[in-house]
Structures are given as C-alpha cells and as structure tokens.
C-alpha cells in the first residue's frame, strides 16, 4: 500500500484529497455517505462575518459537462458556524479548513480572528473571489494589491496556516499568486470558478437572476490544470489544485502539474462518494506504478516546478 500522507504549510493530511468549498456544506450531508475521516481535509462552505441569506432562485444551472452556480454565499455567519457547525465536524474527526469570505479586507481579518480562537480549525482558506465593496465591486482576486492586503490582514489576526484561493478570471495568475505568497499566504488554492452565463431563449433572459454565475465541473478542468502548472512554476508555496476533479487520473493531472493536494467539488453532485473513489484510485495507481509515496509525483510533469516538496505525514 502506497503512502498517501503529506505534510505541508503546517497541515497534516492523511491523503491529498480534500473537498472544495461550497460543494460539501459543513460536512453533514455527505458525511452520511462516508466517514469524513477518509479524506485529507474538509473545506467548509464560505463563512462571512454576518449571516448571509444568499441569492434568489434559481441558483444553479447545468452546462455542458459543467454547471453555473450563484449561491451568493449563504451562510450562518462566523459565530453561529463556530457554535453550530464546527463541533460536529470536529467530532466526525475531520481535518477542517474554513473557507473565509468578505466584502472588505477588515471583514476577512475579523472572521480570521474569530476563528483563531476556535478549536479544531486546521487552516483558513481565504476566498478572494468576492466583490470588493471598498473598491467598486471588482473582485479582490483580480488585483494583486488587494489580495495582498486581505492576506496581510488575516495574517495579523491568526496563527493558523493561511491558504489563498485564487480566481482564474485574470490575465496572469502568477502575478496574483506571487502577491499572495509574499503577503504571507502559506499555500494557494486554484482555481475558483470561471465566470459564465446561460441565457434561456424562451424567456429571453439569463437563467440566473444575477446574470452571471460561477462555472465548475469537468468542463473547466483543462483551464485548472494549466493554472496549477503555471503557478507551480512561478512560486514555491504549496498548491491545492481543483476544478473538475472527478477521478484519480484527474487528481494525478493536478499533482503532476505541481499541486500538493487536490479538492473534489462538483463531482460530489454526480457521485456522492467521488472523493473516496479518488483516494482509492490514487492508492491503486501508486501501487500499480510502484510509487511508494504520492509526494514523489508532485510536479512530475512540470519541468519548471519550483515548489518545496511536502514532507511525509
């Protein structure tokens, strides 16, 4: 049996398979299909300072080999999250990464600060794909300075490892990645969703009330693999690769491009046990290919790979 364990960025993962934020709730629902302990980590739905109701319906629409979502960050707010959701996750034995969102840099920092005191939070994932209300509503994630400000703000308020989750909707991801790394981010997650739209010819309107939504699923995988490949050749911080991971082969693409770990998102909607199958598939693949430790594969397809190699679990 191959060793799938990894240690990087202050995280210890029994295997490199996580859940993608927003596709796995707070672990309760899919926790009925498999034990949360079988995954490397559980990344929660995005948490904000105040509770958010989210967007009106419809919030999801299917696209070829993908989907758009416009959930609007529905969540109970950080305080109720800590009280009502975190204990169950902790008890289920999950390694918990909390996804953090906000509309101002100080909102991010405040959420990070409150989570710093909470027990059972292994790391924070900062989602910089929200509109920056202080700067006219462009998302933080397209502006390296804004990303750096958010990361620095969080860094001052927490000792936990910080992962910055980047949006792919930029001309040059490496610039934003460098800004996040230099501002103190311990790891990067990429990619978040692409911006997309579906129009219903019958109603002559976009299907989603806000027009655009976030594109995810197998359709975006080639874009995500390329993003990981490019960023892994530009920065040395560990990368969590995601975007359309459905099988172990997909996960291997990301790891060989340079990701230290992967996350499964939309694939849960197709197969509730997709992530478990990815873990099993990785183990089988390593055995068949005489790979003793999965860490050996990181960056294997990327001659420019700059990353520090993770340690063993």
């Amino acid at each position: 049996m191959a060793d799938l364990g990894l240690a990087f960025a202050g995280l210890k993962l029994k295997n490199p398979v996580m859940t993608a934020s927003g596709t796995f709730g707070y672990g309760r629902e899919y926790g009925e299909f498999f034990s949360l302990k079988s995954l490397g980590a559980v990344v929660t739905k995005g948490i904000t300072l105040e509770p958010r109701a989210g967007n009106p319906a419809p919030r999801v629409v299917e696209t070829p080999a993908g989907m758009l979502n416009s959930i609007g960050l529905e969540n109970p707010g950080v305080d109720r999250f800590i009280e009502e959701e975190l204990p169950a996750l902790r008890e289920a034995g999950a390694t918990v990464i909390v996804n953090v969102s906000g509309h101002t840099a100080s909102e991010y920092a405040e959420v990070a600060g409150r989570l710093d005191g909470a027990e059972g939070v292994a790391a924070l994932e900062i989602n910089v794909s929200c509109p920056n209300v202080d700067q006219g509503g462009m998302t933080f994630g397209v502006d390296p300075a804004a990303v750096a400000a958010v990361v620095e703000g969080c860094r001052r308020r927490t000792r936990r490892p910080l992962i910055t989750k980047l949006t792919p909707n930029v001309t040059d991801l490496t610039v934003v990645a460098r800004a996040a790394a230099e501002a103190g981010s311990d790891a990067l997650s990429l990619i978040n969703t692409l911006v997309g739209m579906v129009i219903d010819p019958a109603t002559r309107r976009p299907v989603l009330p806000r027009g655009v939504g976030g594109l995810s699923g197998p359709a975006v995988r080639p874009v995500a693999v390329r993003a990981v490949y490019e960023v892994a050749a530009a920065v040395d911080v560990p990368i969590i690769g995601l975007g359309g991971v459905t099988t172990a082969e997909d996960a291997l693409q990301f790891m060989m491009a340079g990701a230290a770990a992967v996350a499964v998102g939309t694939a849960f909607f197709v197969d509730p046990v997709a992530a478990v199958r990815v873990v099993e598939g990785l183990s089988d693949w390593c055995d068949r290919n005489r790979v003793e430790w999965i860490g050996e594969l990181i960056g294997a397809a990327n001659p420019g790979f700059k990353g520090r190699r993770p340690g063993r679990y």
Partner: protein
Amino acid sequence: MLSVFRAPIRESVRVGGGGGRGADGDGQAVFHRLRLHAAAVAEVARPGQFVHLRCALPGQWDPLLRRPLSVHRINRGRGEIEVLFRVVGRGTGYLAGLAEGDAINLIGPLGQGFPTDLADGETAVLAAGGIGVAPLVALAEELAGKGAPLTAAVGAQTAAGLVAVDELGKVAGRVATATDDGSSGYHGFVTDLLAGLLERVARPVVYACGPEPMLRRVQAMVAEGGPRVRGYLSLEARMACGVGACLGCAVRRAGPGTAYYHVCHDGPVFAAQEVVLGG
C-alpha cells in the same frame, strides 16, 4: 449511512400522452414509468420523497447533474419503487430510453415526505396538476392503507396530459379530472375542482403538487380557509446535490426578512404557509 444504488430496471413503459419521444413540437407530452428494484430505498421511502438519478453512462460527464424524480409508488414487499415522469429534456429522454435489464445509478430516498397523520375528522384532499400526480399516488396508497378518508382531483392542459388517474382511482375512489381545454372532465382548472372539494369537506388536509401557478393558487385557498384547512405543497427547484450540501435549491421562507429553505433537504414538501413561491 446513505448509499449510491445501482437499481436494475424491472419495467420500462411509455404512459398515455401524445406521439413521439421527447416533448414534441406540437406540445404533446410524453410520459414514462420505470419500475426499479431498489430494496433499500423501498424499505424506507415515504410518499413525497424523491430519488436523484444519474442520466449518463459511467464516465460520461454530459448531462452532468442528476435529475430528481418523486417516488411514484412503493412496493416494500418486492423491494421496488416506481417513478413516473414527463419526458422534457436530455435527462428524462435518457431515462425513457432505458429498457428492462438496464440499471440506473440513484441516490435516495431524499427529502421530507408528506405528513400523513390525520386527526379525527380530517379528510385528505389531493390535488395534482399534470405530472404533479406522480408523488400523490404513493401518498394516496399510504393514506388508504391507514384508512384515512380521501378524495382527489387531477388537472392537465389536455386529456393527453392526464396520467395515473386509474392508479389514483384504485385507492382514492372517484377522481375528479379537469382539463384547460375541456377535452376531458371539467373544463377549467384543477383548483376550481379543489375549491368545490374544500367546501364539501369539513376539515380538509390539502396535498398539492403541480406547476407553480397552481401551487400559488392552492396556497391562497389554504390561507383563505383559515384554521379549518391544512395544506402541504410539493415543490420543484433546480438542484445540484439533492442532499442539502450545495444550497442550490433555494425557496424563500415566509416571514419577515430574507431567508431560504432548501427544497431537497427541508422539502420538497412544505406546509403551505411556510414558503414564498416565485420569490
């Protein structure tokens, strides 16, 4: 623990409706019924719950998402469930193309079913619009099994859209029917029939499933009926996960402020006054 099932198809039949497979150019609906072996689902399924079905071959990612279909009938003894659906697009088209011996990948039963405990003196009044009849057959069978008083009305645009009336009739007695074009039964809306039933029945418990305009009308009728009338609506919503994880299937909660239920998890059945339709 929930599981992902591979349910072999025991029977696959086209039901009523017009010609051709898929929604025809002339708007004639095509309906299809599948009988599936899924003992673990049949064991625990309740009327009003649904199953979430994959509509592509393994390893194919288009269409990507599962399709929700109500549990139409439950046969615990044989470990079977039935689904009844209108063929509207790629997903239901795929399902209608399956034959006996094929299998479907499904998860379920999901969601909250209809509350079926009636107080003394209460009568169940079932109202279906079009394919909304699907969950009401399982409901009628359960209510009849409990000996609850029961009456039903089904409406559709045309006679061809009236399906499963016989199945319903077997347990509910006479089923009143209505069509928008008068091609069968009462010429008008099923809610007109419902209005009549609500007058005749002392303490009605309304169970309704159908298109949103119909459900809005039912909601208003239940509200107008005051404490004498209870009402439950089975809703539809675009879904991704089907289990409460993605928050995709929002429906507005009634009450001050903005808050949402999730149809797959809190529903699909809601008490009529709990939700704001079309919100």
